[in-house]
C-alpha cells in the first residue's frame, strides 16, 4: 500500500501557494482532504476523523502562515498539535503501590491482542525496578495459554502461578493473592482469557475476578493493527469491566497505529506503553506527539532531529565540510562519518525514523549493509595512520597487509580503495557546490547522500 507521507502530499498541493499570508478556506479544504485520507489509511475511526477534520478546519482557516513555515507545514503543524492534544499530550507511566503493599494488575483484551506476552513484559520491566512480580495464569480456555505464560515467565526468571485449567479464574486470582501475601510478592499480574467483546459470559467472568481481588489497574491490551473495530473494543471493555490504562501491542511493524486515537477517545484513559513484538524486553513509553507523527505517516523525524542534535559532533562535521570542499577527504574522515552514523542507530535506525521509509526499506537488505559497514570499518582500522591520512600511499603489499589484518580477502580491500577513490571524486564535485554553505554534514545530507548515488558505496 502506498502510504505516501502526508507532508509530501501536502507539499504537492501547496506548491503553487507559497507566498500567501493566510490560509484560505479553499486551501484548508484541499489540505484537509489529504489529512482525512491519511487518517483513514491509518485506521483512525471514521466518525473520529469526521469530528477531527471539522475541528481542525475551524482553527486553520484564517491562520497566519508562519514566515518560517510553508503553508503545507502550517497545516501539518495545526493537525499534529490537535492530534497530540487528543492523544493526551504527555507521557503517563504505570504507578504502583508502595513496596510494602501488593499491587494487582489485570490484563484484559481481545484474543490475539498480545495479553500474555505483554503481561510477561510488564513483569520483567518491574522486576528490573526491584519489584517482586508473580505472573498468574487465569486464561483457562485457550489451549496452551498457560504454557505460553509459563515459558515466558521462565525466560525472565519470574515466579509463575497456575492451578491448571479446571479451577475457575476468580478462584485462581484469589489463591494467587494469598500466595503473594504469604511469600512476599508485591506485584500480581493476572493474565485473563482473550475474548471477543460480544461474549457476555466472559465479561461476567472478568467482573467476578475484579470483585475477588483488589485490582488496581485494569489494563487493556490492544493490537496496534486493529481496524475500525478498535472503537467498539475500547468502548465495551471500558463500559463492561472498567479500564484505567491501555497498552498498544505490536507496534514494531509498519502499522500506522490509528487505533491509538480511537482507543484514547473512547476510554479517556492514558496509553501507558507500546509493545514492540515478541522479544520480552521491548516495552516502550508512549509519547503522544510521536504517535501523532506516526499516524500521519510522517515518521519520527522529531526523534531523529533530537538524536542528531545530541549525538553529532558539530566541530567534526564542520571540519569534514572544509576538507571536502578542498578535496582532502581521507580514510580518517570516512571512519569518522561511519562512527557518527552508528551513533544515530546505524542505517536501519535512521531509515526507520524517516517518513515513508518503512516501505522503501523493504527492498534494502539492511543486515547486509550493516555487515558490510563493519567490514569496511575493520579494513580502515587495519591501515596505518599514515595510510589513513594519505590514501595515495596505497600499494599492493600494503593492501595485502590490510586484508590480513581485517581478515578479509584482498579483493575486498581493492574494492574499498576503488570505491573510496570514486567517492573522493564525487565528493570533490559535491564539495564545490557546498562552498559558502556551512553546518551541513556531507555524508549524511538526507537525500543527497553521496554514498547512495550510483556507483557509490555498497551500503
Amino acid at each position, binding site marked *: 500500500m502506498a502510504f505516501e507521507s502526508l507532508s509530501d502530499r501536502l507539499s504537492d498541493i501547496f506548491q503553487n501557494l507559497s507566498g500567501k499570508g493566510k490560509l484560505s478556506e479553499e486551501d484548508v479544504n484541499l489540505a484537509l482532504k489529504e489529512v482525512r485520507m491519511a487518517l483513514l489509511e491509518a485506521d483512525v475511526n471514521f466518525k473520529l476523523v469526521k469530528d477531527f477534520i471539522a475541528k481542525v478546519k475551524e482553527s486553520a482557516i484564517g491562520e497566519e502562515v508562519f514566515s518560517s513555515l510553508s503553508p503545507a507545514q502550517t497545516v501539518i503543524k495545526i493537525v499534529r498539535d490537535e492530534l497530540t492534544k487528543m492523544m493526551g499530550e504527555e507521557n503517563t507511566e504505570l504507578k504502583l503501590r508502595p513496596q510494602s503493599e501488593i499491587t494487582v494488575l489485570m490484563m484484559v483484551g481481545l484474543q490475539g491482542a498480545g495479553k500474555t506476552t505483554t503481561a510477561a513484559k510488564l513483569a520483567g520491566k518491574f522486576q528490573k525496578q526491584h519489584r517482586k512480580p508473580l505472573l498468574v495464569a487465569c486464561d483457562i480456555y485457550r489451549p496452551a495459554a498457560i504454557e505460553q505464560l509459563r515459558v515466558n515467565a521462565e525466560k525472565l526468571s519470574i515466579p509463575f502461578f497456575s492451578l491448571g485449567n479446571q479451577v475457575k479464574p476468580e478462584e485462581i486470582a484469589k489463591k494467587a493473592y494469598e500466595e503473594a501475601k504469604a511469600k512476599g510478592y508485591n506485584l500480581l499480574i493476572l493474565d485473563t482469557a482473550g475474548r*471477543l467483546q*460480544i461474549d457476555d459470559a466472559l465479561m461476567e467472568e472478568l467482573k467476578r475476578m475484579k470483585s475477588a481481588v483488589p485490582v488496581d489497574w485494569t489494563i487493556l491490551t490492544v493490537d496496534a493493527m486493529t481496524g475500525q473495530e*478498535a*472503537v467498539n473494543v475500547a468502548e465495551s471493555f471500558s463500559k463492561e469491566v472498567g479500564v484505567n490504562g491501555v497498552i498498544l501491542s505490536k507496534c*514494531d511493524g509498519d*502499522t*500506522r497505529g490509528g487505533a491509538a486515537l480511537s482507543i484514547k477517545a473512547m476510554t479517556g484513559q492514558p496509553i501507558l506503553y507500546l509493545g514492540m513484538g515478541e522479544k520480552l524486553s521491548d516495552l516502550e513509553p508512549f509519547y503522544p506527539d510521536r504517535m501523532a507523527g506516526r499516524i500521519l505517516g510522517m515518521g519520527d523525524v522529531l526523534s531523529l532531529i533530537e538524536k542528531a542534535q545530541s549525538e553529532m559532533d558539530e566541530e567534526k562535521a564542520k571540519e569534514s565540510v572544509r576538507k571536502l570542499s578542498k578535496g582532502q577527504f581521507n580514510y580518517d574522515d570516512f571512519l569518522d562519518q561511519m562512527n557518527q552514523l552508528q551513533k544515530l542507530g546505524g542505517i536501519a535506525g535512521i531509515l526507520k525514523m524517516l517518513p515513508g521509509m518503512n516501505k522503501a526499506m523493504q527492498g534494502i537488505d539492511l543486515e547486509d549493509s550493516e555487515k558490510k559497514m563493519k567490514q569496511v570499518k575493520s579494513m580502515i582500522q587495519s591501515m596505518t595512520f599514515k595510510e589513513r591520512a594519505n590514501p595515495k600511499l596505497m600499494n599492493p603489499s600494503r593492501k595485502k597487509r590490510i586484508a590480513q589484518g581485517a581478515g578479509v580477502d584482498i579483493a575486498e580491500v581493492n574494492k574499498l580503495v576503488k570505491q573510496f577513490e570514486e567517492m573522493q571524486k564525487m565528493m570533490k564535485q559535491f564539495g564545490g557546490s557546498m562552498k559558502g554553505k556551512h553546518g551541513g554534514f556531507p555524508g549524511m545530507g538526507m537525500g543527497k547522500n553521496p554514498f547512495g548515488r550510483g556507483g557509490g558505496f555498497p551500503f
Partner: protein
Amino acid sequence: MANIFTKILNNIFQSNEVADEAFYEELEEAMILSDVSYSSCMRIIDAVKHEANQRGVNLTRDVQKILKDYILDLMMVEEGYYAFEQEKSIISVIGVNGVGKTTSIGKLAYHLKKKGKKVILAAADTFRAGAIEQLVEWGNRVGVDVIHQKEGSDPAAVVFDALQSFKAKNADVLIIDTAGRLHNKKNLMQELGKINRIIDREFAEGYRETLVVLDATTGQNAMSQAKLFKECSQVTGVILSKMDSTAKGGMALSIQAELGLPVKYMGTGERVENLQRFDAKRYVEDIFDLH
C-alpha cells in the same frame, strides 16, 4: 455506532430515492467502517457510479444492486479453489502472531478429516513460546498426528520429519504451521525458502497450497502483511479468521482487488467446526448489513 448507521443505510437502500452525493458518502462510510481501504473504496464507488450511468439508472435500490453484484463478482469463489482438498497436498499456513493461525490450522485439519482425509500437522512455528504445545493440543482435539520438536529447533528439520511420516503413513494432507515474523523479511524468506526446498526435494509430486491467515479485526495493515507474504512465498489464498467478532473484515476486499488473493475460508468461532468455505454473498451482506 456502526449499527445505527447501517440501519439508516438499510433504509436508504430500500427506498426509491435518487442516489445523490449524500448517498454515496454513506456508502463510503459503510465500507470504511468495515475496514475496506480508502483507495479501494474510492475505486469501487467510481466503478459503481460509472455503471449506473451506463445503465441509465439513478435510484438507490438500483445502485445497491450494482454495488452488490460488483463486490460479489470480485469476491466470487472460483472452481478449483479447493482442488487441494482432493489431492495429496502439502499446505503451508503463514500469518503473523495472534491472528489465529494455529487455531485455523486445527480447524482446517478437522474440516479435512471430516471429508475422510488422513491429516498430519507439522509444528514448524518453533519460535513463539507455546506455539508447539498449542498445535499439539489442537491435534489431540481433532485426533490427528502432530510432528514436532522442541522450541527453537530448525523449522525445516520439523518439516523433513513430517514429510517422512506423511509418506510412511500414506497420509493425504500435511498442514505446516510456519512462523510469521514480519519485522525481518530476510529471515522469513530464508525460513520459508528452506521449507519449500525440503518439500521440493522430499515430495515434489505433492499438490502445493499456501494460505495466509489474516485477522478480520486488523485494519489497513492486513494489506502490508498480505503483500509481504506474497513476496516471500507463492501464496494461493487467504483464511480470514475471527469473522465472528463484530469486525467485518473489509480489508479482504481490498486485498482481493489490489493483490488478487482470494479468500478461501473464514473462521467463525472457537470450536473445531467453526471454519467455513468463504461465502461471498454473506460477506457482502455483512459489510452492508443487508440481512
